């Protein structure tokens, strides 16, 4: 069963996807469904002995085209809608072990090109309003498969976080002669400098002034780009470089393959373009060595984050582990 149920209190959709309860959970390496299928071996999701990057429809999707039939009753107070959309898995590499930190620079450039292709192809579907590209990494954030991979959710509506971002950007433009809110946030971060952890010609990585997580890093395009579709080949290269610097910096600081949520923010795929500003957000669930950051009462109950650190200090720690060239 899968459907959208409207929450009139919070004014947001909840997706029910009961089949996901049975999804594959941390299988042993020889039964990894994201590895290539070897001759005489376990048949994985990928029916080839080798590949570079693979994208496939999630076996346990939250959205689907055509969607399953609605089972709950829809009433005025809480309407129910079909969970129409697409959920994809992006397998970064045929190698079972590793992460973005261990991929080659060229593999990350290729991954960026695949993300862009999916953003554009899914965006052309009439049912789709927003394409969310993300990676959940590490058991600490609930991954069920260790093989390096990310996911893409193509939503039939604009989800609340991008909607809020766009609303802020729209208001800011109105009040500031058409200026981009994100460009101005970046300008302040770059001029202040104490929270910047890495930078190149086209991208800057920093812990925002208002970081919610101790090691929350945002990577902003230094030119106003609204989506991956706006990037040049040179920007692809520089984006790959800075993404890798950040994840390697995390690994070096914590001396482990560091867990995180990585979320790509860009324009919705329908309507007027250019309002959003391409950026990545890394939201690691770690607050210090061996200590996790949980979203507890205040975060969940009030929507207010308590950050147990100040971003200037954490930026300094991380910056020391990132080559500054």
């Amino acid at each position, binding site marked *: 069963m899968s459907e959208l149920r409207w929450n009139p209190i919070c004014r947001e959709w909840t997706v029910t996807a009961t089949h996901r309860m049975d999804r594959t959970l941390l299988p042993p390496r020889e039964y990894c469904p994201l590895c290539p299928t070897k001759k005489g071996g376990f048949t994985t*999701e*990928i*029916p*080839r002995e080798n*590949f*570079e*990057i*693979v*994208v*496939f*429809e999630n*076996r346990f999707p939250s959205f689907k085209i055509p969607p399953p039939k609605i089972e709950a009753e829809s009433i005025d107070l809480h309407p129910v809608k079909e969970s129409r959309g697409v959920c994809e898995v992006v397998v970064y590499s045929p190698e079972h072990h590793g992460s973005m930190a261990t991929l080659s620079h*060229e593999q990350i450039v*290729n991954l960026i*090109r*695949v993300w*862009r*292709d999916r953003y*554009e*192809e899914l965006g052309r579907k009439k049912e789709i309003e927003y394409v969310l590209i993300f990676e959940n990494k590490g058991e600490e954030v609930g991954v069920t498969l260790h093989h390096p991979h990310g996911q893409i959710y193509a939503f039939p509506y604009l989800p609340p976080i991008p909607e809020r971002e766009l609303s802020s950007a729209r208001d800011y433009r109105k009040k500031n002669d058409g200026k981009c809110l994100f460009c101005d946030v970046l300008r302040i971060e770059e001029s202040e400098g104490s929270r910047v952890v890495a930078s190149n010609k086209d991208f800057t990585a920093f812990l925002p002034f208002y970081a919610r997580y101790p090691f929350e890093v945002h990577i902003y395009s230094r030119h106003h780009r609204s989506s991956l*579709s706006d*990037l*040049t*080949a*040179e920007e*692809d*290269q520089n984006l790959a470089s800075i993404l890798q610097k950040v994840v390697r910096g995390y690994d070096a600081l914590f001396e482990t393959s560091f867990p995180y949520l990585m979320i790509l923010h860009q324009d919705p795929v329908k309507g007027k373009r250019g309002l959003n500003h391409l950026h990545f957000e890394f939201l690691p669930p770690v607050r210090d060595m061996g200590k996790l950051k949980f979203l507890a009462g205040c975060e969940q109950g009030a929507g207010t984050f308590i950050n147990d650190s100040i971003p200037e200090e954490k930026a300094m720690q991380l910056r020391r582990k990132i080559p500054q060239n």
Partner: protein
Amino acid sequence: MKVAEIGKVKQGQIQLEHCSRGVRGTNIACRSGGYCYDIMFDRKKQKMDGGQSEMHEKHRVMNKEKIIKDDGRYLIFYSFTPERNDEKNGGEEKHRCRS
């Protein structure tokens, strides 16, 4: 940077090696949306605009091969080759060259 339509390219411009839509033998470098960039090429420095000549030489064409699995789900193999592989990608690849 100037933008010119495909086929309307002046002398002194250069076609990027990775560019699959550019007309070979001419000096076109193209971009998505059916437009071409004028690439300013400084032959003395042997660098394209932005100094990324080496980068472009390494840039490969993205091929897509889509298959449908037994359970009806699609799966796409992405591969990156020096040349466009039209047979493999089944004509689905959308042109995507950037300069």
